[in-house]
């Protein structure tokens, strides 16, 4: 059986490219708002060139072989940039799939073969382009997952700041849901800061924690217990009325920890305990002459 695809791609490169571009530009799925015609043309040309080069090797099935490496790299770049531009995965994959039509019509037009051979060739090309199209989806997904993972890491770091409020008083404003991963990060950061700053008091503010269930409470109590073992006491502040009610309904016992409604109250309490400067200076700012 002769495989005319490499030859067709070489000989009719320009016709195929024209038809493909025409096809893409007139397609329903074209996103003129996201990508310009020139960009689309460059992408298409690059793909066609690399694909044509790869196909010349005669390998028309295994896209993981070294001949296809440039094609895959190009598709990776392509998929990643399309993902950033806001294309959906199917729109991204359509780029490759839409190449089938011009290729098939070129195959049909070449006319040197009988029907059985034509079908055979088409199915080979079909399978090959399917694989490449799916590959773009895969890369798309992977790049999205990377973004998600990076954001998660950033959030983890961003959401656990330990602030030194006063000499010997730390504040830990918690924001977001507390799960076991975050609790361990929070715990480690807090304990390390306690050691570093020699602080005897830590205010854990849970104003930004949306819900407190038994698990979150357990995590909080663990943190408090660990800080206590090191010789630092914790105050939990920022308990909203609803959360106080939930805690009582869930029979969460916070009697071992000092709790205050607001961070301000907690700070006042902490200053009083540590014997810090809590006296308000009632000096007349405008003294008489």
């Amino acid at each position, binding site marked *: 059986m002769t495989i005319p695809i490499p030859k067709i791609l070489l000989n009719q490169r320009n016709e195929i490219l024209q038809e493909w571009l025409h096809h893409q530009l007139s397609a329903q799925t074209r996103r003129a708002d996201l990508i310009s015609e020139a960009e689309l043309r460059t992408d298409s040309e690059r793909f066609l060139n690399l694909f044509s080069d790869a196909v010349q090797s005669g390998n028309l099935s295994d896209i993981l072989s070294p001949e296809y490496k440039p094609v895959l790299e190009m598709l990776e770049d392509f998929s990643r940039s399309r993902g950033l531009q806001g294309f959906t995965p199917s729109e991204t994959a359509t780029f490759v799939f839409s190449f089938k039509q011009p290729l098939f019509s070129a195959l049909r037009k070449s006319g040197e073969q009988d029907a059985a051979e034509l079908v055979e060739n088409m199915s080979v090309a079909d399978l090959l382009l399917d694989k490449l199209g799916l590959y773009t989806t895969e890369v798309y997904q992977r790049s999205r997952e990377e973004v998600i993972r990076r954001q998660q890491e950033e959030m983890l770091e961003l959401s656990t700041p330990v602030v030194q409020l006063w000499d010997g008083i730390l504040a830990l404003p918690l924001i977001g849901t507390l799960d076991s991963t975050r609790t361990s990060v929070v715990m480690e950061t807090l304990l*390390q800061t306690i*050691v570093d700053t020699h602080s*005897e008091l830590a205010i854990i503010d849970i104003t930004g924690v949306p819900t407190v269930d038994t698990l979150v409470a357990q995590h909080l109590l*663990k943190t408090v217990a660990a*800080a206590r*073992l*090191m*010789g630092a006491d914790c105050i939990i502040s920022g308990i909203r009325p609803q959360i106080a009610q939930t805690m009582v309904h869930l029979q969460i016992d916070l009697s071992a920890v000092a709790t205050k409604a607001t961070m301000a109250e907690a700070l006042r309490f902490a200053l009083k*305990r540590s014997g810090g400067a809590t006296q308000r200076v009632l000096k007349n700012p405008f003294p008489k002459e």
Partner: protein
Amino acid sequence: MDRIPILKIGDFLLVTIQVDMHDRLASALQDDLTSKIVKVKAKGVLIDISSLDVVDSFIGRMLANTSTMARVLDAQTVVVGMQPAVAITLVELGLDLSGVHTALDVEKGMEMLRRHIDIPQLDGDASGQP
């Protein structure tokens, strides 16, 4: 056999644990400590574990027991300088050493002991919360 030295500082005893604890060392320490408390009429004991990087439930229990023994002999115990990793381990093991007082370092522990000895509390609550 190694022995853990017990230093006398004023009314207090200072024990610095720097080696891995095992059963015999622990019981030797408890022997020495209790007899020393009686001998010098110590009012407080500071156990410094700042150089311990690893603890297990055994050491946790040993600390709690030692503290209880000292209390029977009318001396308050403060465990000082626990490392963050150690604290996390103990909490994960479920040992919160609720009967043991803790402080960040020897200095703060000593301050704490002084406060307690000057102002004896009836209910034995040593956390110092008003």
